């Protein structure tokens, strides 16, 4: 089966209530998803040959928040996580990531991100999607996370705390994950912040070969067990940060496990496409 056929088959079973025009109440379009994931799916299957570990940890239905580390100077990590859920989960699921506001002001990017269910990062969007029993993809490191340089690729920068309040408010389980290899695929050596500002972006990553074109490096995604927290999101900062740190520690542990797998040790439960 070609990637395009595989994507078409997944979209027949994905948990999205498309109307007769193939559009759901959030404006997500089956036609746009098919096109986008056929393109991304090629990279997922054949270029990066992404390996998944413990994909079963993701709930098959209902709300959940996937929380992971940024890896790679552009949104490669989000795209590959989304491919893994749509192409390798049974039943397939669509993850919604929260994108930078500036993307919605750029012609075509605005149209494509919205039609593919990737909305501006607003708490209102996160709550609505979770209350609609969807999967939310969150990178609490934010733009500082994608700005990690090659030598910092296995580190975690400070986490924001908004995701934890949202998870508590919506009673959504958190599935931690580690993404490995993005730093090698796009080995950022410098971030051009002034150039980025000129385009309305936070920065432009620069690699030894100048552009942030990804190299064909194998990528690994390690999914951890769902974490459940009690509360309503109105807790004191200390309580929230203590829980944020629990999630951060879980992700750091998964990164370490992923590194061992990539070094050839502890190669357990690997699903290789």
């Amino acid at each position, binding site marked *: 089966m070609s990637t395009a056929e595989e994507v078409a088959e997944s979209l027949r079973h994905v948990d999205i209530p498309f*109307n*007769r*025009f193939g*559009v*759901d*109440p*959030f*404006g997500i*379009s089956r036609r746009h998803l098919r096109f986008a994931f056929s393109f991304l799916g090629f990279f997922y299957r054949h270029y990066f040959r992404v390996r998944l570990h413990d994909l079963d940890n993701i709930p098959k239905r209902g709300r959940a928040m996937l929380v992971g580390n940024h890896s790679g100077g552009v949104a490669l990590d989000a795209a590959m996580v989304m491919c893994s859920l749509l192409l390798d989960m049974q039943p397939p699921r669509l993850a919604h990531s929260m994108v930078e*506001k*500036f993307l*919605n*002001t*750029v*012609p*075509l*990017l*605005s*149209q494509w991100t*919205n*039609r593919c269910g990737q*909305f*501006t990062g*607003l708490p*209102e*969007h996160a709550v*609505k999607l979770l209350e609609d029993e969807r999967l939310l993809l969150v990178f609490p490191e934010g733009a500082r996370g994608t700005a990690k340089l090659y030598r910092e690729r296995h580190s975690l920068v400070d986490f924001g705390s908004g995701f934890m309040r949202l998870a508590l408010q919506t009673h959504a389980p958190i599935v931690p994950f580690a993404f490995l290899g993005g730093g090698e695929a796009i080995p950022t050596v410098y971030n051009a912040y002034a150039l980025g500002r000129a385009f309305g972006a936070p920065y432009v990553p620069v690699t030894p070969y100048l552009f942030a074109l990804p190299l064909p490096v194998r990528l690994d995604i390690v999914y951890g067990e769902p974490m459940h927290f009690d509360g309503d999101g109105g807790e004191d900062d200390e309580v929230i940060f203590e829980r944020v740190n629990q999630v951060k520690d879980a992700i750091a542990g998964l990164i370490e496990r992923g590194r061992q797998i990539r070094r050839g040790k502890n190669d357990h439960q690997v699903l290789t496409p």
Partner: protein
Amino acid sequence: MRILIPGIAGTMGQLVAKDLADKGHEVSGIDRRRWADAPSNIEVHNVDIRKRAAEETFRKVKPEVVIHMATVSHFAAQGEERYRINLGGTRAVFDHCVRYGAAHCIFIGRHTYYGAAADSPLYHSEDEPPMGLESFPELADLVSADLYAGSALWRFPALTTTVMRMCYTLGPTGHGTLATFLRGHSVPTILGFDPLFQFMHERDVVKSIALAVEKKPRGVFNVSGPQPVPLSVLARETGRRQIPLPEFVFVRSLGRFGLPKIPRGALNHIKYSIVMDSNAFRQATGFSHEVDEVQAMHEYKAAFPSVREAG
């Protein structure tokens, strides 16, 4: 019930009046415009809502329910006149309601209250502030009228106030901003943007207002019907040809080549979505739409075929 409708001679005012009269209510209205073929059981007073004669109508009719539909958009009136109609008129309606003992006042507002912007969320809830005024100051009078109407909730606790923020209307009457935007055989859009449009059929608009009269929900409510659709689908399903223009070309073409002359701020409304969450209204009144998005678009298309199809 005795119901008075300021703005009765407009397309939606007439439909609402006929529906309520058919349901057995005693309906009368106020409008500067004439309603030539008004049914005999509907009394129309040709007076200006801001003038003394309108107060006299309130005094004589002593309405139990007032449905305030006498607001205009920037397309219908310009500048200062629009402010006087929308703000002066709304103030007069609430003052007269209180003075002449109305029990319930319904203000018909618009979803444009929320504004369209790159960082505005899908599915607005009623507690959100108006965020679009910076880019589209022409909306200030309507937003102010909406907020002023909402202030009646605490200023006049004995008066039940319902503020209804309605989404676009689309159906065979061709009434409303969206229907007007789609009237030509080509629909200009901005290249690379395809916002969601939320609209409801006239029949559902009438149904929602009649339910508000019956159930008397107190508060501010978003009112919408079926799920929104992208502008590209809207153009296609109403038989129009979509012409995506780069924004700089679009801006320079406004008012020329058959394109409407719209304020720059209105551009955001064809770049970004305004979609509301209307669950609170549905729960308060039991409202559900009867006409889905497909039927609404197809009924509009049948009533207003594109020039090519009509030819």
